[in-house]
Structures are given as structure tokens and as C-alpha cells.
């Protein structure tokens, strides 16, 4: 058997190896001890797949490909080095979008190649349409999520009149267009129309989702980027793409489910209800909220409460991420531990803007892993906690989720900080959380409010705690 006969089988076998490495890598990513190794294994799998593809005899354009790979690597490496840990949600969104765009471009390129031929097989037309649809939605959806997270436009849900009917008519237009393209596969006008609709659909899909629902949409888009790669695999009849895309697709779906469960809402509710934007939650709690009193304290008093407590539980939220206060928080915990206080961190699954957001930030600040507690583990302990310190979190600690049936967040599992002996809430202002719901926790007699930016307030707490001895 000479080389040119062996090569195609060799490439397929290399793909099999690469797919195996991806599976092993993902498996290892699921356990803290082996996660880093798992990432490396997956990266090696990617290298194997790329090298094998370059050996394909149809790939001749080496110089330009080399330039493209070097350019992409340089940009990717710089991005990965520079990005702040607090900006990880945007980073993931952006990379997601690039992956989706690449898949869509592959399909468009293939369509163009088929256009030059007399006949386009039906299966090709169908898979190309699907690939452009998923890739296009992933691309513009992720870009919009990036723009929202970066704060370039408002992070709140954006809605307009007749949004749902408009979306549905666009979908119908897409279906009709697909039918037309199958009947007239050579019509580039129809194809362009379909591409445009896909891109618009991506924007419309993310537009009404905002704020605290972002972890769901980020993990869903992650899943889509995998499905887009799979679809491109169907276009090219390439198993490597199909397998890897399916793996990413299913992992993204699992994360999406975990996020939805943590908010006690269904996926369709997250996607289509434009939560928190509408005024439909006419404040049932509005009555009386004006004449209730807030108890405010200053940093010295706060430091005293914390310093003389036996146990303190810190509850971080998106506010800590925005203020980049994670290092200051760690310092505060160190000072408290010096005074013999037992410090724990309570992490709500949807705190922040992506799955695991708080964990990454606290890891960056070198908080020991055993101090982080999941919601289910810490909730039974709050009865015995002296002070719960809430830093930039709101909806995830709102007792209305437990008690007020008319509240839009009713039923969402929360961190039960109201059962601690005292609660200190660090907050920039009295604005409501993302859900737009008033938080009765703030008005309780045992709740003390400490107003200010998370970083400044925690820093002054640190100074004040240092003076206790």
C-alpha cells in the first residue's frame, strides 16, 4: 500500500484518536484534581485533528493557511493573557461567537463551491441551511451577549412591541425560504436572504434576555456553538466535526439545565419572558415599603460586628465582580481569621453572569477551595451563623422567594441569610436587583446596610478590622 492510498485512512484514524482525546479531556475536566490535565489532553486532541487535516491532499493552500493560523493564534493568545478574570463571561461569549461564525462560514463557502456545479444534492442543501442557521444565530447572539456584558449597551432585557409575533414570522420566513432554496438550489438571492434572517434571529434571541439570566444564555450559546460545528460536519461529511460538536452541544445543555434549575425556572421561561423588564410585576410588596426603616451602619460598626463574631458567612454576588472586590474580600477574610473568626463563603449557582463565575473570582484571589460552600450545604448552617455578609448580591438572598407567593422570584432556591443572627449587606444603592423586586431582607431589624462600592467598603472594613485586637 503506497502513501497516497494509506493517507485517507490515516487521517480518519487520527480523527478517531482526536475524538478519543476530547472525550478523555472532558471527563478529566469534570474533577478538580485532573481538570488542568484534561484541558491539556483536549488541546492535544485538537492539535492531532489539525495536523491530520493539513495532510489532506485537498489542502494545498499552505502559505495562506499558515498566515491565517498564526494570525488567529496571536490574537487568541493575547486575548487569553490580557483578559481580567471578572471579564470571563464576555470572553467566553466572544470566543463562542467566533466559533459559530467559523462554522457558518464553512457552510457558506461550501454552498459557493456547489454553486459552480450543475447539481447540488438535496442532502447538501438541507445541511447547509441548518449549518448557516445555527452558526448565524450563535455568531450574532454571542456578539450581542458580549456587547451587553461589556456594558457597551444596557444589560437589561430589551423588548419592543409585537416582539414574539415578529420572531415567529421571521422563523416562518426562514422555513419558506428553505423550501424555496431546496426547489431552486442555485438561487444565491434566497441563500443570502436565509443567511440574513439567521443573523437577525441571533440578535432577537438574546435581546430580551439580560442581567441575571445571562448564565443561562451563555451556556446555551456554548451548546449552540457545538451544534454549529456538528452541522458543518454534516455539510462536509466529516465525523470529527460531528463528534466534537455533539460533545460540546451536550455539555452546554447540561450546564444550561443546572442554571435553570438553580433559578427554578424552565428554559422557555428564561428565553421568552423578558424577566425583570416588564412592569407586569406591579409591586405587590410596594405597599408599605416606603415607611419601613433601613438600619445603616458604618465600616467601624461593621468591622466590630464581624470581628467579634464566631462565624461569618460571606455571600458574594455580581456586585463583587463589577467592583473587582475579590482580593479585598480575601484580605478581609484573612483579617477575620486572624481574630479567630470562622469564615465561609456561600456560593449561589447563578450568582454572577456565567456558571461558576464567583468560584473563578475567589480562586483568583486565592481563597482556599474548602471554604466555598454550595447552596445546599450552607443553608442548614445559617441558623448558627453570627453574621452573614452579603456583598453585591440581591435576588439570590431575597426571602420573598420563600415566603411571597405573588413575587416573580417565588420558588427560586435562595441562600437563607435571613436566618443568620445578623446580616450585613454591602450595596451601592437601594436599587432593586435584576428581577426588579423589592428585597424585604433589607428592612429586617437584624439587617444592617453598608452603602458604597463593594471594593471601597470592603477595604475600609479591612482597615477597621485590623484595628481590633
Amino acid at each position, binding site marked *: 500500500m503506497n502513501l497516497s492510498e494509506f493517507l485517507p485512512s490515516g487521517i480518519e484514524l487520527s480523527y478517531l484518536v482526536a475524538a478519543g482525546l476530547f472525550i478523555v479531556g472532558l471527563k478529566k475536566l469534570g474533577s*478538580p484534581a485532573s481538570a488542568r490535565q484534561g484541558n491539556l489532553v483536549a*488541546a492535544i486532541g485538537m492539535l492531532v485533528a489539525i495536523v491530520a487535516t493539513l495532510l489532506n491532499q485537498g489542502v494545498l493552500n499552505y502559505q495562506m493557511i499558515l498566515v491565517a493560523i498564526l494570525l488567529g493564534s496571536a490574537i487568541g493568545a493575547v486575548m487569553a493573557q490580557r483578559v481580567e478574570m471578572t471579564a470571563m463571561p464576555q470572553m467566553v461569549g466572544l470566543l463562542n461567537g467566533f466559533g459559530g461564525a467559523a462554522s457558518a462560514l464553512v457552510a457558506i463557502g461550501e454552498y*459557493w463551491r456547489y454553486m459552480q456545479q450543475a447539481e447540488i444534492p438535496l*442532502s447538501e442543501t438541507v445541511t447547509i441551511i441548518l449549518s448557516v442557521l445555527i452558526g448565524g444565530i450563535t455568531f450574532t447572539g454571542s456578539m450581542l451577549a458580549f456587547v451587553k456584558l461589556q456594558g457597551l449597551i444596557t444589560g437589561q432585557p430589551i423588548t419592543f412591541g409585537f416582539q414574539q409575533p415578529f420572531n415567529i414570522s421571521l422563523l416562518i420566513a426562514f422555513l419558506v425560504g428553505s423550501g424555496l432554496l431546496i426547489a431552486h438550489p442555485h438561487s444565491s438571492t434566497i441563500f443570502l436572504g436565509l443567511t440574513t434572517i439567521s443573523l437577525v434571529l441571533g440578535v432577537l434571541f438574546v435581546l430580551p434576555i439580560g442581567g441575571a439570566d445571562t448564565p443561562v444564555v451563555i451556556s446555551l450559546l456554548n451548546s449552540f456553538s457545538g451544534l454549529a460545528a456538528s452541522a458543518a460536519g454534516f455539510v462536509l461529511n466529516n465525523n470529527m466535526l460531528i463528534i466534537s460538536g*455533539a*460533545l460540546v452541544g451536550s455539555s452546554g445543555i447540561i450546564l444550561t439545565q443546572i442554571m435553570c434549575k438553580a433559578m427554578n425556572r424552565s428554559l422557555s421561561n428564561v428565553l421568552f419572558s423578558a424577566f425583570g423588564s416588564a412592569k407586569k410585576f406591579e409591586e405587590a410588596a410596594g405597599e408599605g415599603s416606603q415607611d419601613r426603616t433601613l438600619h445603616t451602619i458604618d465600616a467601624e460598626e461593621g468591622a466590630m460586628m464581624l470581628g467579634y463574631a464566631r462565624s461569618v458567612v460571606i455571600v458574594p454576588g455580581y456586585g463583587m465582580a463589577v467592583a473587582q472586590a475579590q482580593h479585598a474580600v480575601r484580605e478581609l477574610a484573612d483579617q477575620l481569621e486572624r481574630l479567630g473568626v470562622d469564615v465561609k463563603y456561600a*456560593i449561589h449557582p447563578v450568582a454572577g453572569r456565567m456558571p*461558576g463565575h464567583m468560584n473563578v473570582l475567589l480562586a483568583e484571589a486565592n481563597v*482556599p*477551595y474548602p471554604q466555598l460552600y454550595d447552596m445546599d450545604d450552607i443553608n442548614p448552617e445559617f441558623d448558627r451563623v453570627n453574621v452573614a455578609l452579603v456583598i453585591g448580591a440581591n435576588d439570590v438572598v431575597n426571602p420573598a422567594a420563600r415566603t411571597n407567593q405573588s413575587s416573580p422570584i417565588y420558588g427560586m432556591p435562595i441562600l437563607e441569610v435571613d436566618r443568620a443572627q445578623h446580616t450585613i449587606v454591602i450595596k451601592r444603592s437601594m436599587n432593586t436587583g435584576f428581577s426588579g423586586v423589592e428585597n424585604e431582607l433589607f428592612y429586617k431589624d437584624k439587617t444592617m446596610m453598608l452603602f458604597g462600592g463593594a471594593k471601597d467598603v470592603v477595604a475600609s472594613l479591612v482597615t477597621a478590622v485590623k484595628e481590633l485586637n
Partner: protein
Amino acid sequence: MIDPLITGLVVFVLATFIGFEVINKIPPTLHTPLMSGSNAISGIAIVGALLVAGDKNWNLTVILGLLAVVLATINVVGGFLVTDRMLQMFKKKDVKA
């Protein structure tokens, strides 16, 4: 000869099941690294991009393919590197703890 579309579907469905099984239980700490790591894997679109960009003659397909190669490479390199950066932080802290 079985239609390649059917073969593809079989492969797709089985791989999806493997994905569900492999990633079933995942501690919250690893949610972000898992997401960015699997995100990097979705950059596998680079394989498709290379095949599409491979033609020696310049045409629209090659241009689109090259653009796809750039984007997919950013996805792959950026994704794996940033995941490693994150996991490195977890590591450092484990040693301390």
C-alpha cells in the same frame, strides 16, 4: 452504500449520549472552566475551515475558508489558554490549602 447523512446522524446521536454521560456530575467550581474548555473544543470548526480553504486557486470559497480559519483559531487558542490560566489559579490555591 448507506447515505452519509444517516451515518452522520448515527455518529451524532451516539456522541451526544457520550457527552451527557461524561459530563454528568460536575462541581460548581468547574462550571466556568468546563464551559471555556468545551468552548475551545467547538473550535474544531477549524478542521472544516481548513478543508474549505485548501484550494490553491483564489475564489470566494477560499476567502471565506481563510476567514473561518482565523476565527476558529482564535476560538481554539484563546479557549484552551484561558481555561489553563483559570485552572492554574485553582491549582495554586489547592497547594496552599
